[in-house]
């Protein structure tokens, strides 16, 4: 029974990991840009959440909304002011640019807020539980999974049903040709980066509610995001979701067996999957959303 609970909790955590990966994977799918600063932006979003939640009406968990809005604007600005300037055939400049940004952000947060561990307090909710098929599960982790599923589905629908979503998919397919239809692909990129940041920011805040974070947590977050995207098969939507589940379940089982292992077994499982299936779990039945 305890193992079933662990697996269920792993799936809850996995939804959150999938959400962490979604931002990175979405940005990669649309722009072929890998934002190495994503992990540190996730932590920055948690700090923004930390400041905003005391003022959030109704319930602290709703702080994800203002944080997502702020992150969207930051993402647009990041793309517009910095990344768009180094776009090109060669990926090295954009990767190095975002790496530099990550260093600035991380050390800026240490300087500004100290290196202490922080957490966003959601009050009583943290202790709420419910019984499901004889398992005792937490309300907050389950709610986080629901939010993750809703965001995945919403993004998917929006991309396929809306006018702007259509332009984003078209730009992902061929950024040169969309210009011939009067689309400024740099603007589309800015919106896409804003969205990627907003999704990551929500993940960052939820992570800060479930557990704790320090300014140094960015590297771990980035590695999780990266593994989710690679396991998912580089840009496949639902593959990423599956990737998050695999990592979440692995990590919680490993922590039960070896409480000091941290993320190590997650990393190892990632490599095993990479060895067995280079295109990730979704490689075989790959979703065609972003395929190039």
């Amino acid at each position: 029974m305890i193992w079933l609970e662990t697996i269920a909790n792993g799936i809850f955590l996995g939804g959150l990991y999938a959400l962490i990966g979604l931002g990175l994977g979405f940005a990669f799918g649309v722009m072929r840009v890998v934002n190495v600063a994503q992990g540190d932006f996730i932590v920055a979003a948690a700090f923004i959440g930390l400041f905003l939640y005391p003022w959030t009406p109704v319930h602290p968990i709703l702080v994800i909304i203002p944080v997502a809005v702020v992150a969207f604007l930051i993402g647009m600005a990041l793309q517009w002011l910095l990344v768009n300037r180094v776009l090109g055939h060669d990926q090295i400049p954009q990767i190095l640019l975002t790496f530099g940004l990550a260093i600035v952000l991380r050390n800026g947060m240490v300087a500004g807020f100290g290196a202490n561990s922080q957490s966003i307090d959601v009050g009583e909710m943290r202790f709420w539980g419910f019984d499901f098929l004889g398992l005792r599960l937490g309300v907050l982790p389950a709610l986080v999974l629901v939010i993750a599923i809703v965001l995945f589905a919403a993004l998917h629908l929006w991309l396929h049903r809306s006018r702007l979503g259509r332009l984003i998919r078209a730009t992902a397919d061929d950024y040169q040709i969309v210009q011939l239809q009067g689309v400024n692909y740099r603007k589309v990129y800015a919106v896409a980066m804003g969205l990627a940041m907003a999704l990551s920011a929500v993940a960052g805040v939820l992570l800060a509610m479930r557990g704790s974070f320090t300014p140094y947590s960015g590297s771990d977050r980035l590695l999780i995001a990266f593994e989710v995207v690679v396991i998912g098969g580089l840009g496949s939507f639902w593959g990423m979701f599956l990737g998050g589940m695999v990592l979440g379940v692995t990590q919680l089982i490993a922590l039960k067996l070896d409480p000091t292992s941290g993320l190590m077994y997650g990393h190892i499982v990632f490599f095993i999957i990479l060895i067995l299936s280079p295109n990730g779990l979704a490689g075989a039945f790959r979703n065609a959303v972003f395929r190039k």
Partner: protein
Amino acid sequence: MSLLSVENLEVSYGDFQAVRGASLELEAGQTIAIIGANGAGKSTLLNAIVGLNSQKRGTVRFDGQDITHLRTDRIARAGITMVPEGRRLFGTLTVEDNLMVGLAAERPGPWTIEAIYQLFPRLGELRSMVAGSLSGGQQQMVSIGRALMTNPRVLLCDEISLGLAPKVIGDIYRCFDAITASGVSVVLIEQNVVQACAASGYVYCMLEGRISLEGRPQDLTRAEITAAYFGTEVRT
């Protein structure tokens, strides 16, 4: 004054100069063709007109305005678009989504989604198919339809007959009567000289980055065209 005029355009890729001072004129309502062998600089010239190639000198004027250094999306919004070589559809989008992307140019006009389906009835039946799965001819129709959806004043067509069966080529070219009738001026790039002469009112021949010959199709002899096309001397 002509609708589109190119004066002394030079375009290079790094060290290589692909277009070496080409000039051409397109009047409103007219269809012109650019012929020439592979590597003559035809595609480079069209890409430079729509701003997909940044290393260039010379002037491109559209409706009296200098658009030489305008961004591609601005040029499209001004009313010049292109059917690119190799069709370049948005492969993961459906046929209808591909067409709808053209709405981004925000140019109202006769070309609506219904008008496109009227022009190419087959596309109406295929509207929810993923564009990447269509046949070459169907893809070319989508590519032309997608360009028309921006309601252009000038439509540049880069090798639309390339790799298609003769019957399909005939079908596609027949549609150009309706396109020009709606007021669109057309620039065709063709390797097929007969096709180009039949479809256009004025022909430019390119050779090694220069215009080697121009004139109305009926005024040009076969020998002249052959010489301008392949760069051999005309033996008289």
